């Protein structure tokens, strides 16, 4: 491979991973936009989504692939969205008027509970799941989508998996934008995000709208779980922390609260990771991402696309 081909290959890998990060980042940014909570448990929700996806695949292994994919894309987001909604209902809703750090600490607690659930899920003794004995070990996710190169015999690989990522994520992001911009529910979300009290005075049930936001954000994380599991073919119970930090960095980089910002940030982080893996060293990649996070927060806390006017930081 020539230097250019290596670069191009890393671009493709970076963009595919970036789209997955962007989907998770959307969940962060929506929740932050509406209640100013860094939903720390979001990454671990994504991890639980991967385990849910593996469970679905294990149970429906004999069905045709397209049907399995369809089931995955319906059941996993429903599971993740429902769980996210439930957590908001049980934990965060009671802390709406508490000091600002209280919901964040609570979210860290939820993240630890999810982590433990992931460990237990991986250790399910039932044969049908085929999870194996070691609960903490990484699990193989079956290869449902082939790794065939769509560019023929070229050195640069653009596989069916990369195509799958694009085919699922791009329409979803367009749909989300339309939903928030055009529908009544989307308008209510924007109103609550702008000024909760005023929105309530206009007859909007703020708690319900916040619940819908958690549902939607969780659903996006669920789609991200399916795509990531199909793309990487391996899942483990500690993957949520890493994914969550990448996605949060993406959301901050793009300007937290901004939907296009989250997508842009996700692509940037995906590219930065791929290029750092190739040209610096894999072991320094995580440090790179955190360094980006800190530098953005310190020098441009409103992010790339964030609103110019914001509360003093």
């Amino acid at each position, binding site marked *: 491979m020539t230097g250019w081909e290596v670069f191009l290959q890393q671009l493709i890998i970076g963009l595919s991973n970036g789209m997955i990060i962007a989907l998770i980042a959307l969940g962060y940014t929506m929740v932050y936009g509406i209640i100013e909570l860094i939903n720390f448990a979001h990454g671990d929700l994504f991890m639980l989504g991967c385990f849910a996806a593996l469970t679905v695949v294990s149970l429906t292994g004999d069905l045709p692939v397209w049907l399995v994919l369809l089931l995955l894309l319906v059941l996993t987001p429903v599971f993740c969205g429902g769980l996210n909604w439930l957590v908001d209902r049980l934990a965060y809703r009671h802390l709406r008027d508490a000091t600002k750090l209280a919901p964040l600490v*609570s979210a860290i607690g939820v993240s630890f*509970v999810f982590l433990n659930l992931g460990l*237990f899920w991986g*250790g399910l003794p039932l044969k049908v799941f085929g999870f194996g004995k070691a609960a903490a070990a990484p699990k193989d996710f079956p290869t449902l989508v082939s790794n065939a190169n769509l560019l023929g015999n070229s050195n640069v690989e653009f596989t069916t998996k990369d195509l799958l990522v694009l085919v699922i994520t791009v329409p979803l992001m367009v749909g989300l934008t339309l939903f928030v911009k055009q529908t009544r529910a989307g308008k209510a979300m924007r109103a609550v995000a702008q000024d909760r009290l005023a929105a309530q005075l206009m007859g909007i049930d703020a708690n319900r709208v916040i619940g819908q936001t958690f549902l939607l954000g969780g659903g996006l994380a669920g789609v991200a779980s399916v795509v990531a599991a199909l793309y990487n073919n391996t899942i483990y119970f500690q993957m949520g922390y890493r994914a969550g930090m990448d996605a949060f960095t993406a959301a901050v980089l793009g300007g937290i609260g901004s939907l296009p910002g989250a997508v842009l940030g996700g692509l940037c982080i995906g590219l930065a990771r791929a290029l750092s893996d190739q040209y610096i060293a894999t*072991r320094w990649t995580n*440090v790179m991402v*955190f360094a980006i996070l800190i530098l953005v927060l310190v020098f441009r806390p409103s992010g790339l696309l964030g609103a110019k006017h914001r509360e003093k930081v």
Partner: protein
Amino acid sequence: MKLRFHWAFLLVAALVPVVGLFVPAARSLGELLRPIFIMAILALGLNILTGFTGILNLGVAAFMALGAYAYAILTCDIYPFQFGFWPAVMLTVLVGLLAGLMLGLPTIRLRGDYLAIVTLGFGEIVQDSLKNMDVITKGTQGINPLPGPTFAGYMFRSETYAPWYYLFLGFLALVVLLNRNLQRSRVGRAWIAIREDELAASCMGVNPMKMKLLAFSLGAAQCSLAGALWASFLGSSGEPGNYDFQVSIIALCIVIVGGMGNIAGVLLGALVVVGCNSLVLETFTNFLKAHELISSTNVYTAPGNWKYMLFGLALILMMRFKPEGLLPSRQVKAELHPHEPPPS
């Protein structure tokens, strides 16, 4: 005068090895208390930030790691310094002070939740860097062996029990005394004023940036003291993975469960949280294993595997039902329950 909980705690703790001479059970209790003392020092460092000043720090493990590695580099015989225990500990505290200042200077003006994420990122960067810079830090092996501390010609050996116990207890008492005096000084009152209302505090002539920086560096210094003591006890800096996010969260759990901003509360929190983590869960697991009540392959039956669940639920439930902690400071309690009459 009413005997304060923290002095009572230290007094009772000082008697444990004496009782241990006669009752063997007290000795094993004392051995379990030593990590609790270390974690209490760490949590008291975090308490300055989170409890007094109201800054959430999710990366105290990084300061502990810096302390442990600084101490190791200063004492280990593969490096040119080869200081003794006491000067090395003092220098380590200084290193922690500077590290806190370095992190605090650019980030202190960030809003609370952003600052929390920056400290978390700092924790990960320190951990990864220690792992990757293996020329200096020996990577995952850690720096070892370290010479034991000496005190008036007496050499601490790893198998002895009471000397370490009193060394750690002594440091803990020193830290408690220092924190209590800080809390009652002008600085401590300024910290609490900032926690309650930063704008009002600055109108009263408190410089919030200066005071927050002071909290950052003093808290970091205490955390690195905990790291240095732990390294001297292990005889090794430990591997970078020992100072991961989980340690920071345990420290946060101690402060929140015990009672933010209350020294006695933090001591109680350390006893409850670390006690639950190392004493109850591990002893219970070992007991069940020894009696073959659980199989080593079944992940559910080992109580140790419920650790994350317990910490997570502790954080969620405390925030929901008792945000002021088990042993709250008077001010925090009054703030969170404004309608109850103060105790007469």
